[in-house]
């Protein structure tokens, strides 16, 4: 994979567009991303953010790199993930939940119907007449939580809960330099 860093023939180097999102995640991977600390300044010489919690841009335009945190737990996650896939040349599953489903996927051994019933109808401390939300504004949950590669094609996987700031830094800089990312021993871990 090679990311074009010039605007056509002979053009000056352009910044790469990067979009990020957290689906069924905890934003921990994004926090870990910020653990690159002051290195974000040289990084911003090379990239600019498109849709991301860091920019608050609501929809993603054509991008070079997309970082997906979290697995896919509801219909909105599917739409967002498809938006990223349609726009990003390279899509990266960032962190344990995106790679495997992670903690949210622990609900997978339960029937969704039973979960909804207990949470909204039969559980303790519910208000009188409490019922399962059915507003069309709300995205419906999927029967199970899935890793992102089961919904769209994913180009790279960066495991870890979360991957360390150093791992994310190493991964992104190698990718930007046009190298296939390879993490050193200690940076690659499954937890």
């Amino acid at each position, binding site marked *: *994979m090679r990311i074009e860093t010039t*605007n*056509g023939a002979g053009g000056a180097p*352009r910044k790469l*567009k990067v979009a990020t999102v957290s689906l069924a995640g905890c934003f921990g991977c994004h926090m870990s991303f910020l653990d690159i600390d002051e290195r974000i300044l040289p990084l911003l010489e090379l990239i600019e953010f*498109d849709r991301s919690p860091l920019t608050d*841009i609501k*929809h*993603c*335009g*054509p991008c070079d790199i997309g970082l997906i945190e979290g697995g896919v737990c509801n*219909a909105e996650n*599917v*739409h967002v993930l*498809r*938006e990223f*896939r*349609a*726009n*990003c*040349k*390279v*899509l990266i599953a960032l962190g344990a939940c995106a790679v495997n489903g992670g903690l949210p996927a622990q609900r997978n051994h339960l*029937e*969704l*119907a039973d979960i*909804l*019933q207990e949470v909204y109808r039969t559980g303790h401390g519910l208000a009188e007449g409490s019922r*399962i*939300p*059915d507003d*069309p*504004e709300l*995205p*419906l*949950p*999927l*029967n*199970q939580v*899935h890793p992102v*590669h*089961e*919904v*769209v*094609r994913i*180009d790279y996987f960066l495991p870890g809960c979360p991957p360390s700031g150093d791992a994310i830094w190493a991964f992104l800089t190698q990718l930007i330099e046009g190298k296939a990312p390879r993490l050193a021993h200690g940076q690659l871990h*499954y937890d």
Partner: protein
Amino acid sequence: MATAELEDILERHRRDPLQLLQILIELQARDGWLAPATLGALADALGMPRARVESTASFYSFLHTRPAGEYRILFSDNITDRMLGNQALMQALCDKLWLQPGKVSEDGLVSVATTSCTGMCDQGPALLANGRTVTRLTPERIDEIAHLIRRRVPVGDWPPEWFHVEDNIRCRDVLLDHGLAPGQALAAALERGATSILGEIERSALRGRGGAGFGSDIKWRSCRDAWGDAHYVICNADEGEPGTFKDRVLLASYFDLVVDGMCIAGMAIGANKGFIYLRGEYRYLLDRLETRLAQRREQGLLGRNILGRGFTFDIEIHLGAGAYICGEESALIESLEGKPGKPRIRPPFPVTNGYRGQPTTVNNVETLALAALIAVRGGEWFRAIGTPASTGTKLLSVSGDVARPGIYEFPFGVSVAEVLEAAGARDTQAVTSAGAAGHCLAADEFGRRIAFEDVATGGSIMVFDASRDMFEVARNFAHFFAHESCGFCTPCRVGTAVNARLLDKLAADHGSPYDLDEMAKMHRLMQGASHCGLGNTATIAIDDMLVKFRPAFERRLHSPDYEPAFDLDAALSQARRMTGRDDPGAHLGDNRGALAEERAHAHGRATTAGVQDAPASAEPASAKDLQP
């Protein structure tokens, strides 16, 4: 179970925690399952942590820690059983008994499920009824089985001819026509002495018949030279490779030669004790083998002072309990020590640190039988047979689409085509040369030769004619390995499961080239990163099929690029039902249509919001340009 009964079993096993698996197998045979109270009592009696007892009890397929029914029916599910129609027969039995595969009937009477290859590929489809092998199943036989179960007739009272296992020897050479009397090889070896025997084995260039082809003389010498309190000989009769059944025949009809071989190995390495690790699927042979061992003890051919020559060597038979991984020698030793069959980290190798940490040589049944032949006829005689790098003959278990399935003994160097010709194969499209774990050969390779230097094999030759769908063969193998992975290392535990899921995805019409690429990647990863031979070989045949029979996979692809692993709209079904919603937002459309729509939306948004780089051309980029 009564305490006295447990005491009796414990006493027979010397209250030795290393006998745990054997004790569990006996308890299971009596009770039909291993109840929590039984495991607790056993842990107390053996002075072991309960977790250790449970880890063994839960590792083996044939041990049940939940009630599995008075009748436990396991259909052999090798691809050869499938080709003979086992799936329809299993469904028929389930229908007659009103139950679902894998579930116990509500009255606790019976469960019906599948198990890995039971080694009856030449007379399948086969099943195990409470551990006893039933061969040559037919719809009529299934009817009768259902009838007998409903009438609660004990398996021991079922018609004896159902349990008959044929040898099906089709082609004999020096091993199967050995012409030696019981003990003759052992007498010759005792005459020669240990040093001379090791010399003859070296001259014979005998290599291990399990498939890896390690030099037997090197193994025996290293073991003999290793320091230890005791040395051990293990006969690996855990013949689990799908499509292999040669050891079954050697044990059933050539047992004296095998025992002679074990005694000779014991003499050569300085051991007084040997074990036969008999796979649980061959439980039906146990009584016969024990009887013969007892007879040999009386005849002075086993035990103390063998043939009056002052050599002492005895043999104990241990049963396996349905774990393919135990064919790996260090996993086998773990299992022999009563633990879950997980391969050890090597080195140290068993020849220095094996059973009880002592020097141990683990040999295949066939290797030991050949060693006995060599003791009589000499290394030079043996070396003249076969090819320079692969001396002697090889037993081949031939099954699948052939007129005469069975055992064929050929000198090494025989071509695949000659084997097919002998077995009466017609219109053959593929041959798996070493079971599920070896290469798959296509017709243009049938001129290749069976030998360690060309087509290496442990003896499993499965034949597929042009009518067979090689995709289904790959899928059967993938599920086999996903079931048999011991779970110790991540590449194999996850990799085998991923492969099985990808092939199921293709079978469910959700396939894409992405999935084929993933399987190729998994092949490279698992070959390099797995802990033992199981993971290293689990993708060889599948990868061969992906390369050589690619159209069988491609015809199942649903999209030219990528397909989700599951039906997205169906994944909202429970939420729709629980909320009563059916609005457009309560559905998810087809992936490709949705992606195209997203792209169109994205361009609209990008242009109006002005966040897009100025495009080089005035035209907005098409969806195709954006594809990575």
